[in-house]
Each structure stands twice: as C-alpha cells, then as structure tokens.
C-alpha cells in the first residue's frame, strides 16, 4: 500500500443528532493528500474546516450524536474499521496537529521537558529519561531554539507565544508523523511571528517528510504555503486546484468572494507623513497638545 495517499477522504458526511432532529454539517467532502504534499483547506468560520480535521484525527468518531459516513483513510487504513484504541495509537505517531494558540495547547502545570518526554515515550516506551531529553533538545534545536536546556526546564507561560509555537511544532513532528494537521497555526500570534512559524513549518515538514493539511481562512498565508488548495463552503468542497491556478483563475463564485474579502493591510503600509521636521526625530521632546494636560 505504498502508493496509497497519506490522507484520503471520500464522500465524508457528518451529521449531529440533536433534540430538534439531525443537523447536517458536512455534505460529502472528498479530498486527498499525497506524501510530502502541502494541501490547504480554506473557508470561512463555520464552513466545516475544523470539524473535518477532528474527524481525520478520529476525535469525533466516539462522540455520541455524531453520525459519520464516508471513508477516512490514513495511509490506506480505514479509520472506521479501527478500534478506538487503534485510533488513539495513530495520534501522535502517524499523525499529529498544531494549533491556533500554542500557549494554551501546552499544559500549564508541567515543564516543557516533561511533556516532550511523554510524547516521545508514546512512540518508544523504552526510551530513557536522558535519551528523551537529548532527543527533545535536538528537535528544539531544529526549530531554531538554541538554548534547549532552558526551554525544556521552563513552563509554557514563561515562554513567548512564538517560542511555544516552535515547541509545539517540534513536539508534533517528534515522532515523524506521516500527516500533520495545522489548524490556523499561530492565528493567536502576531503577524511577524506567524510568518516565521510558516517558514519554519515549511522547512520542518520537508525535513521530516510529512504531508500537511493546512486549515486556514487566511488566503495570503495559503498562497505562500500550500501546493494545492481545497475551498470549503457550507460543508462542501466547492473548488480545488493547484495554488497558482486557483488564485489566478478562481472559477467558483464563492472562491472569488473569499478573495475579494481579503483585507488589504499589506497594501500601502503607513502613509507618508505630511510633514517631517527635526522635532519628529527627537522622541524625548513633548509636543504641546499631545501629552496629558496635567503633564505640563
């Protein structure tokens, strides 16, 4: 089964049973990701992106009230045919995920090193404390954290959001998963850190040979990162294609609407200041009428 795609969804449907009847959420999603490919799933909030990711990870299958039909195959193996235990065993080993807000994704009561060791231990129960620490340090070094010892001994709240994001990436890729799901990674971080993260992620998935399902509503980021794009709207895939083609000639009305909706923050930058005198260059000087009235 070496030629099986890393992830294959065929006519995936999801409905939730509630008090008022059945609510259909996904109306037949089909997509595939081959090994080493970076594929984006783009759509607005509530379109079904994150719920798709949860099904792929096998998190919704056990939930009562969730009806899932269609196929989910990870490396050729059908998730529906697997036991709960077997699905748990896939997570963290064959597939893993990074999140919007990396700081909240790390448990506040454990040091980074402890959490890292646990992740490594799940793939290799025999690993020693020392070996795990060394491996964690090496992985952190890969994500450009150059003082791994300090970071491993720190708690998540002692590190910056960008640091935590890198830790999460390193942790998610620690066991060389075949599939990495990135659910709007770093949306909670500021844009510069986000850009850094993307570059880092691109390099890391290439090094570890992982395929990526990149979930986002940010078309700018998608254009930078993905090889192919699926556009999801109200629980349906409305368009898909290679990134360049899709951005050049969007065919579906929704894709065009989505592109038109991108806020143009990067457009002109800060407009030129109408006046620029010497006082502007002296930051310690208080200009009349700018400070609090009492301050003068």
């Amino acid at each position, binding site marked *: 089964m070496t030629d099986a795609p890393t992830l294959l969804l065929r006519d995936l449907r999801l409905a939730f049973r509630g008090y008022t009847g059945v609510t259909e959420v996904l109306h037949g999603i089909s997509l595939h990701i081959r090994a080493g490919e970076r594929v984006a799933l783009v759509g607005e909030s509530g379109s079904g992106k994150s719920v798709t990711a949860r099904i792929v*990870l096998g998190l919704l299958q056990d939930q*009562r009230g969730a009806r899932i039909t269609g196929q989910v195959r990870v490396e050729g193996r059908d998730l529906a045919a697997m036991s709960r235990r077997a699905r748990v065993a896939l*997570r*963290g080993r064959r597939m893993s*995920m990074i999140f919007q*807000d990396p700081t909240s994704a*790390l448990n506040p*009561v454990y040091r980074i090193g402890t959490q890292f060791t*646990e992740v490594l231990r*799940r793939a290799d129960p025999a690993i020693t404390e020392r070996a795990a620490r060394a491996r964690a340090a090496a992985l952190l070094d890969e994500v450009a954290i150059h003082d791994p010892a300090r970071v491993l001994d720190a708690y998540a709240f002692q590190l910056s959001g960008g640091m935590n994001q890198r830790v999460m990436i390193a942790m998610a890729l620690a066991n060389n998963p075949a599939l990495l799901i990135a659910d709007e990674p770093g949306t909670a971080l500021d844009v510069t850190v986000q850009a850094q993260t993307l570059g880092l992620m691109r390099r890391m998935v290439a090094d570890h040979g992982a395929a990526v399902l990149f979930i986002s509503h940010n078309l700018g980021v998608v254009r930078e990162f993905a090889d192919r794009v699926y556009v999801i709207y109200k629980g349906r895939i409305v368009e898909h294609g290679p990134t360049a083609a899709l951005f050049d000639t969007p065919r579906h009305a929704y894709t065009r609407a989505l592109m038109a909706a991108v806020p143009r923050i990067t457009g002109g930058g800060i407009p030129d200041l109408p006046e620029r005198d010497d006082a502007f260059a002296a930051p310690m000087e208080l200009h009349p009428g700018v400070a609090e009235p009492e301050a003068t």
Partner: protein
Amino acid sequence: MKRTLVILLRNPLSAFGVLLVATVVLSALLADVIVPFPEHRGAVVDFANFNQPPSAQHPMGTDLVGRDLFSRIVYAYRISLLLGVVVLAIAVPIGVTVGLVAGYLGGRVEYVLMRLTDVFLSIPPLVLAMSIMGVLEPTLINGMLAVTAMWWPWYARLVYNLTRAEREEGYVLAAEVLGAGRVWVMFREILPNCVPSIVTKMTLDLGFVILIASSLSFLGLGVQPPTPDLGSMVADGATYLPDSWWLTVFPGLAILLAVFGFNLVGDALREILGADQ
C-alpha cells in the same frame, strides 16, 4: 509551597488561622506530653474531684466523674483530626475519580454517575449520616464510614464541574491529538489543574468534618464513651447549664477554634492558589 506559607503568614487573619490550626494539630500530636492527666482519656473515675470549676490544677475544670476536661479535650482533638484525615483520605479519591470520569467521558457514564451523586446530595448530610449510624453500630470506624458516605459527592460535584471546564482547554485537545489515552488525559492532564481547588476544599472541609462528627456524637451516634469526643462532651454538659458552664463551654470553644482555624486557612488558600473560579 514555601511561597504559599510566606503569603499565609503575612496576612494577619490567615496568620491567626495558621496559628489556630498549628495549635490544634500540635496538641493532638503531642497530647501525651502536654496533658496533665493522660490517663483521664479513658474510663477513670475520681468522684472526689467531680464537677470542679476551672482551677490551677484543672485549667478547664473537671467533668461529672472527676476527669480533667483539658486533658480530654486535647485527646478529643486527636480523635477528631484522625477522623477528619481518614474521611478525606477516602472520600476525596472516590469523589475525584467519579467527577473526572463523569466530566471527561460524558454521555451515559456521566448520566449514571452524576445522578447517583445527586441522590446522595439530595439527602441532608446529617440525616444521611444519622441513618447510616442508626443502622450500623456506633463505633469510630462506622462513624468514619457514615461521614465518608456523605462527603464524597461534594468532591464529585466539584471535580465534575472543573473537568467540564478543563476538557475544553487547548492542552487537553493537544494531549489527545498527540496520542494520550483517556486515563492519561484524566489523571495526568486534567487532574493536576484541579488540584488547587481540591486542596482548598480539603482544608475547609477538615473543619467541617470535625463539626459533623461532633454533631453525630452530640446526638449519641458517634464515638462512644469513654473515648473523649468534643460533641459528646458538649452533650453531657448541656443538662448542667448554666451552673456548670465549663462542661459545655470549653469543648464548644474547642470545636469553634478548630473549625474557625481551618476555615481561615482554607479561605486564604483559595485566594493564594486562585481556586475561586
């Protein structure tokens, strides 16, 4: 731990609480050393000195069969604390496990466990303990059993609510995604984040367990004579009020100080550990 203690001692009110708790605990531990009449904790009769008001020899007076009240109160503390610790040591793990499992797994398991908890909670605690004690023989062990039976549901409730909140946290999802099993997520990811609230409640409860146990023995359902118990001492003396006031007032004060002390410390811990969500 050290930081917590420093903050506790800085606030006068909580420092007073720590002082009270330390007094109670130390006197219980060192009872044999500090008490003037250690043999009076048992069935000793000294009719020559019965029902004496407080004096230099008997700082809190003597009871109806001439035993030194101070000695008996200190020994009663020992029993009360032992009872409190044992009750919590059994009730807390049960309640915490029930709450965690119900809160995390949800569905049918949650329904069964939490309705069972509700059944226990719906019976007034003292009534429940009284009926259990009424059926069983009134001994110290059965007393612990009765109080434990009424105590675990509160922890189940507390931890259930905390778990419901915690399971939506990012790190729980992250742990699941990184391959953690259900037991692991419950006990290693969620539980440590509930510990501040649990510890706070335990501190507060130590006082209340002492109070409830005293209430039971006040009603004659708890620890039986000649074992000293604050509740039965109050009960014994109540008929002789107000003339022999020391028979009731000192054991009553002893209960008050213990409950008050644990309450002050518990309240302070709640603020320090930030467990008051």
